[in-house]
């Protein structure tokens, strides 16, 4: 078995995962970052995106929206606004959210509202992407 490190993924509404992990792949601001045991300490922020971690040789996937990660050689902590398993995602709700956001983007909005709508659209698209890719 490969060397493991301690991983904690904590969302605002629950502890998503707590335990050992062999390999973690996150979407950082400028691309994918792979983390294994003994990684150098880094801190980075996580935009809305996909996340996968390997436990006992099996990949687990999750959709994550907004947060940050602190990596230490023997442990990593992810603090996120929201984190969901592909099978937990409510496809209908995500679709509705996407349509709502797209609709709103066509309207005239202030810059602040525009960014907020864009972020909402991002979250909805990410949810749909993750659930379509990994949950069939």
């Amino acid at each position: 078995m490969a060397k493991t490190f301690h991983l904690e993924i904590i969302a605002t509404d629950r502890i998503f995962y707590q335990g050992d992990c062999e390999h973690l792949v996150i979407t950082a601001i400028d691309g994918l970052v792979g983390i294994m045991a003994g990684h150098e300490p880094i801190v980075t922020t996580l935009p809305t995106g996909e996340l996968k971690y390997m436990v006992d040789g099996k990949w687990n996937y999750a959709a994550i929206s907004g947060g940050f990660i602190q990596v230490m050689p023997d442990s990593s902590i992810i603090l996120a606004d929201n984190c969901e398993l592909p099978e937990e995602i409510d496809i209908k709700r995500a679709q509705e959210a996407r349509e709502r956001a797209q609709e709103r983007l066509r309207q005239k909005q202030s810059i602040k509202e525009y960014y907020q709508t864009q972020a909402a659209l991002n979250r909805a698209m990410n949810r749909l992407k993750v659930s379509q890719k990994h949950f069939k």
Partner: protein
Amino acid sequence: MANIREIRERIDSIKQILKITNAMYLMSSSKLKKARKSLEDTEPYFYKLQTTIDSILEHTPHTRQLYFDRRSGIPEEKRKKGYIVITADKGLCGSYNHNILKFTENELQQAADIDNCSLFVMGQVGRMYFQNRMRSGKKAYVDSEFLYTTQNPTLYRAMEIAQLVLDKFESGELDEVYLIYTDMVTANTQEARKVRLLPFERKHLGKDKDGTLKKLPKASFLPSPEEVMAELIPNYAKGVIYGAMVEAFCCEQQSRMTAMDAATTSAKDMIKDLSLLYNRARQAAITQEITEVCGGAASIGE
């Protein structure tokens, strides 16, 4: 002795109020259950957020990030301070609102210049209180556009509030931002508390117990410390505000439940006392009637 009808009317009116307080008690206890659950769900995040941020700061090289800027060039009496105060939307919850308002009032007294203080009040009760206070000529500006409820806290609302104060901090409208809320110490004790949100504090400069500088490995930041901090601190502010909102909401329900429970109990006590009086008055009336009848009969017999 009081009139029988009067006593009966009083008992009836107390019974009506008892129904209301009892209903409010039941409602707040079910809301409390929900609030407790969300508090329990959020607490791990809230605590982890603080310890992680602390440990990240220990590993952070010195940055000239905007949110760390203490603006020490501005003298104490010219500093513009903002307070986010979390109160309830309605009364009838014992001393909950009173405590938090008193605490804020104290804070304002201590501020070097009250004219430079602005309040961002969440919840109807606090907003009314401070707006009335402003109208009666006392200083401390209340932002009347800041309309947020404290019912069922959401992350989205916390984000909006965080965005608002960060914007004001960035544009120089505020130099310091504090958050005042009620903290649940244990299930039965609550305490008003103040937390500094901005500028961001570096409490410990990585000193060991013996006073020597800790040799901490500097973590690397992707893509750069400034950029990470620019994302991380709004995130942190949002997390802290959300956590405070959840705590405060839970406290509010707890105090309302206690207050309504006490009201129900004392209403029951009053009804008990009044029924005793009522029965006594009724008995007296009956006795009097019997005496009159007897007296009448005796006078006929003579």
